[in-house]
């Protein structure tokens, strides 16, 4: 593939589901998933998609079980786990209120779950034998589509369907034939930019770590990048949540003329 020695392409390090992927890759199930098209676009992408799906389901189940287990029963004085989780919820509520104003509590469940899910998925790739689901376009595309539908639903619920279309038509009515396609295109590009931003950042970071491991051999020269990747995992989760909350704020607070500049 690249000029140079024949034994240069070592491939990404294996993870927990690599064996499963190798066994189903050439069967009818593997062809139904369509890993070959992903492999044609970017090397080893099919494996990333499959492992991403498995780890994504595991993370979702794990977080759900943690939430259910930590909140069952009444505790007059919260125990350690419940106290820690309440601190996390308070921090997320402060974050959402800072970004959306005091009426952001309505969207706290969605935005808080988004932040926690993306954060855990980003950090998962830094553990050996695990892979970040967010380096797969299928996972980030799903997150972007979910955010897109949530933004449209919030806009329609806050303004009504007529008010929402009037919001799309812009401030001056007779500019509507010009503003409507531009606004529609702006709405369509949002999930694309959200998903590609998250995938490119986390995927690029993880592939950089893989190449550094390959170059290092016995010497772990990838450790500084591992530490930096913890920071960028937090940062990317924060950016996704912040942009989602800004998009929701744009469509719901249409009454006040607080039309912040379009983010693409």
């Amino acid at each position, binding site marked *: *593939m*690249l*000029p140079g*020695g*024949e*034994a240069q*392409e*070592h491939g990404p*390090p294996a993870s927990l589901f690599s064996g499963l992927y190798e066994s189903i890759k050439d069967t009818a199930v593997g062809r139904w998933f369509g890993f070959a098209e992903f*492999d*044609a*676009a*970017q*090397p080893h*992408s099919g494996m990333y998609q499959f492992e991403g799906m498995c780890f994504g389901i595991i993370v979702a189940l794990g977080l759900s079980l943690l939430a259910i287990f930590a909140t069952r029963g009444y505790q007059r004085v919260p125990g350690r786990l419940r106290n820690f989780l309440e601190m996390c919820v308070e921090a997320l509520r402060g974050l959402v209120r*800072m970004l959306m104003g005091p009426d952001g509590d309505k969207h706290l469940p969605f935005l808080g779950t988004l932040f926690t899910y993306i954060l855990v998925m980003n950090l998962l790739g*830094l*553990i*050996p034998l695990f892979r970040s689901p967010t380096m797969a376009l299928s996972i980030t595309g799903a997150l972007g589509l979910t955010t897109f539908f949530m933004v449209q639903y919030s806009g329609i619920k806050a303004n009504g369907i007529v008010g929402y279309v009037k919001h799309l038509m812009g401030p001056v009515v007779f500019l509507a034939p010009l503003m409507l396609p531009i606004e529609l295109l702006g709405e369509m590009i949002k999930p694309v*930019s959200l998903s*590609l*931003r998250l*995938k*490119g*950042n986390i*995927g*690029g970071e993880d*592939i950089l770590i893989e190449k550094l*491991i*390959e170059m*290092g*051999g*016995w*010497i*772990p020269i*990838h*450790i500084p990048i*591992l*530490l930096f990747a913890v920071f960028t995992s937090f*940062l*990317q989760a*924060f*950016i996704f949540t*912040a*942009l989602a909350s800004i998009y929701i704020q744009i469509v719901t607070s249409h009454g006040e003329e607080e039309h912040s500049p379009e*983010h693409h």
Partner: protein
Amino acid sequence: MRTLSMALLVLTVVGLSSGLAYAFDQETGGHAAQSKGAKPEHGAAFWVTIAATGLSLAIAAGLGALGQSKANAASVEAIARQPEAGGRIFVSMIIGLALIETLVIYTLVIAFMMLGNVG
């Protein structure tokens, strides 16, 4: 202090284990792929793709760094002018930096796709 030393120990073990995994894999399985045969013939499209990938990423990274430096400089100056608004300015700076960085990441994704199809 004890949790810090425990955290450093865990980090060292994690960091060394991946290097160990690669070293063992190279001893057992990696060298089997070395006798794969002659190098394939590379046409002009191959070299042009390689050059285009490298050049596009270099330009994107350079211009992205210029844009981010302007955003950083403006926000640091604003914080110096009014330190009590530092939190809000910092959050706006982080969001702005990530939005500028997105364009560089788009170029990186296209570069991965080009490198995948180059052979």
